[in-house]
């Protein structure tokens, strides 16, 4: 079901899944091109949660999806503010609001008053910015060796998105939310520490968008088990 939420900078769309009562999970998508590649996968996770009787919402962030704000005008604090506003709105209607973040989504829920956080393959901002800047190579634009990227100036086109340099500068310094209660799940190919590792493919890297319903179901089970003790 399509719905909306308000934040101090405007109004954004969101999708609601699952029952109209009980705890709710807010999903934070990966950023930029990784989001396009993971959207079907995220929706599979949220549908699997709904089958387990758990409600969720998938919000557009300012400057993404249906937002009236231009992508190039978005800054990270818009995203964290919008996410916090949505959390507060849902807290008023639900017994508990939990966070679910994929990849760079873990940089977006940092200020939200969430009951718990669950992250899949969280990525720090410098890794994401590095990957974005590397896509300039793909445009045939050989970045001059040793020359640092300029974080001020006009928006820059990276992997098909026009992105503000202020956003890149903020992301560069951003780390995934680390406030407990926190559970981190990663792919078994990822050497970084995690509470649980699962076999699977990093869909956010695939040039052709894909899906993995079996992994989505496993993750939904993990989330359901994680939030159950806190369910109101």
């Amino acid at each position, binding site marked *: 079901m399509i719905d909306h939420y308000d934040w101090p900078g405007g109004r954004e769309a969101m999708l609601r899944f699952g029952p109209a009562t009980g705890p709710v999970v807010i999903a934070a998508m990966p950023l930029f091109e990784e989001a396009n590649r993971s959207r079907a996968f995220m929706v599979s996770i949220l549908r699997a949660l709904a089958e387990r009787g758990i409600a969720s919402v998938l919000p557009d962030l300012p400057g993404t999806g249906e937002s009236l704000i231009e992508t190039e005008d978005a800054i990270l604090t818009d995203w964290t503010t919008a996410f916090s506003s949505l959390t507060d709105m849902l807290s008023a209607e639900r017994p508990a609001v939990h966070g679910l973040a994929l990849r760079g989504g873990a940089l977006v829920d940092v200020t939200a008053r969430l009951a718990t956080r669950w992250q899949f393959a969280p990525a720090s901002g410098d*890794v994401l910015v590095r990957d974005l800047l590397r896509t300039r*190579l*793909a445009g045939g634009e050989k970045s001059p060796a040793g020359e640092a990227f300029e974080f001020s100036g006009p928006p820059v086109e990276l992997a098909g998105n026009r992105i503000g340099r202020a956003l890149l500068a903020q992301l560069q310094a951003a780390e995934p939310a680390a406030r407990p209660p926190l559970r981190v799940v990663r792919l078994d*190919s990822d*050497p970084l520490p995690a509470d649980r590792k699962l076999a699977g493919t990093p869909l956010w*890297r695939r*040039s052709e968008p894909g899906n993995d319903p079996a992994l989505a179901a496993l993750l939904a089970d993990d989330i359901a088990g994680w939030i159950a003790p806190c369910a109101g």
Partner: protein
Amino acid sequence: MLPDDIAEIDATVRGVLRDVLGLSEERVAAFRSETPLFGALPELDSMAVAGMLTELEERLGILIEDDEVDGEMLESFGALVRFAATKANQ
């Protein structure tokens, strides 16, 4: 570097190519040292190269600078494994 490490890096590079390019397990298992990559694999366009390098960085815990990326390291599977092994050994 121990032979075990080389074998592990070989397997990691195969896994990255499989996952990023969406290749089958059989196809990457058949890669030999001299198997040509860039220019020979249609899936490996320049956008996929960027994703592949980032995924290699994450899985091997290495950093690859843009100016280290050249045609030579992408020429063959063996060249890519040697590049990754050199970086992992630094």
